[in-house]
């Protein structure tokens, strides 16, 4: 039995990221490490609501909501020891929004007019129109501040062969798909106060080890071959909570939802009756239990009730489980049962193809849904893709429906992402194109009056729910498991990432 060396924290995870350049990667696997290697201007607290100072010690918003002025800390240095200045911030943020960088999440920076340095430690962020989400968006790792010299030196290989940020840990080495090693940033003491108790890192080395097999990961954790992981097989969560040698931590304010989206302009699923019937036919309760074993809640609405902007009325519009009702809906819409047990209408078989990124959960619940739908005479064909290829596939029009899971911060954040007609074909893969929705979303984003914003986002929610554009599946919980020698692990959950800056983590042995 080989325990890990003292002061080396071994973090187990399922998959590796393709690179660690903040604006170029959208993978959670990239974010996990980037948060430890670099900092953002502002940080998000454990309540998932409060924005806290990080690199910016304070900031002001102009009354028209269009200009943000950030005052930077003066004691921050990069891993190579060079002090960080406003130039670095401007460079990093401009690089994020630069089309040449081809960041897939550029829109998260808002409708930027200009980002400029007023002096060595002051940055002005000017928008074309108000963007209420901005501070939330700037907590995400895409907006991490990196060292300009390193980026220019490494070019495409920044975040592949090296990295230089201001985070609590520094890049030591990366063996793709195997292991990522970080070492402590010796002078780091600017951890977000109010979020963490300790502003400085406590561990000398951090090893991110990829262990794809879930059972292996589990066993490794329990035998001390790994210290921390958030990639716990769902089935194990309840059991691990009872284990004395494992410490479990849950984030209650966690918004990570699974859903199935329908391409509303493809045959079969373009029929609202079919979409409604699907929503009614699937026993969400049962499949969520069978997939997550209590580590997720059935999603009976498009959003988490705890999220800012949630509309209860819209939630009531999502149909309840009613298999007989689903049959009736289909019968009324003219879908007749065919000889092979699949319904037919006007010579069209009630069959549709669903794409998904290969995960164990998706595989499990899709099979369950498939069985449920078969009972009402709908055939759902499943095609799963590996993550690297899958995203490309999901940008096409080859499929009729897809499943996905995603993190969000607010209702407006979530809905603007998926239901804005401008976001077709991705991330609006449903091809949802409704002027009314678009208008409501714009209003929710740009209005300065919070009440107007709330009403607008509620309107959008109702439209979408009425049309059954999605089938909401589940709200996942976030758990982190830590070995007995590890203390101070607390699940955070920003962008689905549990450890965030990992500042309070200590090793006792």
């Amino acid at each position: 039995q080989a325990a890990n060396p003292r002061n080396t924290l071994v973090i187990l995870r399922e998959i590796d990221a393709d690179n660690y350049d903040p604006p170029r990667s959208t993978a959670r696997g990239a974010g996990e490490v980037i948060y430890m290697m670099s900092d953002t201007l502002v940080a998000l607290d454990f309540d998932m609501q409060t924005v806290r100072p990080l690199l910016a010690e304070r900031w002001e918003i102009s009354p028209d909501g269009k200009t943000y002025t950030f005052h930077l800390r003066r004691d921050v240095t990069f891993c190579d020891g060079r002090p960080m200045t406003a130039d670095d911030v401007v460079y990093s943020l401009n690089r994020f929004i630069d089309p040449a960088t081809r960041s897939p999440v550029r829109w998260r920076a808002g409708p930027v007019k200009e980002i400029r340095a007023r002096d060595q430690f002051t940055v002005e962020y000017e928008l074309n129109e108000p963007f209420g989400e901005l501070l939330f968006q700037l907590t995400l790792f895409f907006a991490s501040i990196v060292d300009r010299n390193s980026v220019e030196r490494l070019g495409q290989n920044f975040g592949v062969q090296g990295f230089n940020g201001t985070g609590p840990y520094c890049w030591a080495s990366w063996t793709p798909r195997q292991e990522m090693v970080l070492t402590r940033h010796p002078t780091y003491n600017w951890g977000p106060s109010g979020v963490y108790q300790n502003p400085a890192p406590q561990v000398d080395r951090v090893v991110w080890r990829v262990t794809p097999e879930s059972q292996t990961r589990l066993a490794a954790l329990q035998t001390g071959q790994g210290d921390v992981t958030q990639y716990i097989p769902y089935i194990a969560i309840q059991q691990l909570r009872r284990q004395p040698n494992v410490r479990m931590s849950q984030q209650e304010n966690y918004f990570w939802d699974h859903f199935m989206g329908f391409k509303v302009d493809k045959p079969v699923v373009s029929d609202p009756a079919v979409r409604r019937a699907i929503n009614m036919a699937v026993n969400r309760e049962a499949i969520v239990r069978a997939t997550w074993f209590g580590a997720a809640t059935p999603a009976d609405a498009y959003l988490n009730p705890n999220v800012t902007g949630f509309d209860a009325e819209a939630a009531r519009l999502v149909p309840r489980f009613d298999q007989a009702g689903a049959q009736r809906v289909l019968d009324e819409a003219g879908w007749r049962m065919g000889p092979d047990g699949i319904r037919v209408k006007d010579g069209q078989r009630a069959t549709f193809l669903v794409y998904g990124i290969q995960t164990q959960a998706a595989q499990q619940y899709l099979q369950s849904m498939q069985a449920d739908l078969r009972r009402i005479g709908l055939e759902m064909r499943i095609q799963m893709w590996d993550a690297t290829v899958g995203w490309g596939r999901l940008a096409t029009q080859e499929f009729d429906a897809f499943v996905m899971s995603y993190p969000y911060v607010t209702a407006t954040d979530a809905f603007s992402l998926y239901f804005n007609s401008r976001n077709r074909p991705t991330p609006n893969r449903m091809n949802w194109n409704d002027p009314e929705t678009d208008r409501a979303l714009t209003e929710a984003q740009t209005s300065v009056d919070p009440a107007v914003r709330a009403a607008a986002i509620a309107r959008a929610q109702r439209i979408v729910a009425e049309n059954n554009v999605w089938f909401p599946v589940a709200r996942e919980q976030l758990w982190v498991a830590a070995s007995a020698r590890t203390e101070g692990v607390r699940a955070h959950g920003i962008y689905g990432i549990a450890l965030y800056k990992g500042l309070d983590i200590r090793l006792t042995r």
Partner: protein
Amino acid sequence: MSATTETEEPIAPPRPGVLARLIREPAAAVSLALVTLIIAAAVFAPLLAPTDPYDNDLSLAMQPPGSEGLPLGADAQGRDMITRLVYGLRVSLLMGFAAVLLGGGLGALLGFLAAFYHRWLDGPIMRLVDILLSFPAILVGLAIAAIFGPGIFSVVLALSVATVPLMARIVRGSAMVVMRLDYIEAARATGMTDARLIWKHLAPNCLSAIFVFATLRFGQVILLGSALSFLGLGAQPPVPELGAMASEGRNFLFFAPHIAVVPCVLIFIVVLAFNVLGDALRDALDPRLRV
């Protein structure tokens, strides 16, 4: 004239048939019975299976073996393991048969041609075989899955491709031996066509080698197929295939081990049965061991 009479005596005793020699060995008899049983189970899967292989009952998910009405338990979807197993057997065997038939057929053809037209074709064919042989089966599987996407089709194609060079070698080897025998010359001396010569005289006498290899290969193919499924390149859910089932079940190994273990054990039994049968056939067909 006494030279043209033959006294009344059958010189060799009636030799026991291959079957008789096969079942003389207990292990072989058991394996033969098992193989028959396995094939029968696969063929009559719809009659044997207690439930629909695609119909789930989530309330029964992961019921351990021995639960009421579920002698082997249920899988993560609450589907009866027995149902899944017999249908899985069906898919796996079909996969194996298809691969061995396709790859073996092509390989045998190549082998016959290389041996028969030794002068011109042996070199080119054997170089091709060498090249094919340099791609281990799993690699072929990976490459083909990359081309056609994961699925049964890819697995069958990959395993067929991987079987071709092996079969070609075996057949060539045994055909070369047969080609040296006088009855081939005798047949040629009667003036028959090459096709008839291959079909009537060469091929039947290589059959035992082909048959033995095919049974052994069948086991390997099932094993390889399940390995490909394990790597996520094989049958896609909800299609029941033993390797894919084991692969799915491994996520619950510590909690509901039967989901992975039962298909593994079945794979083991199937492969074992075919291996033992292949070995026994080899012994039964080996002229040196004939009595």
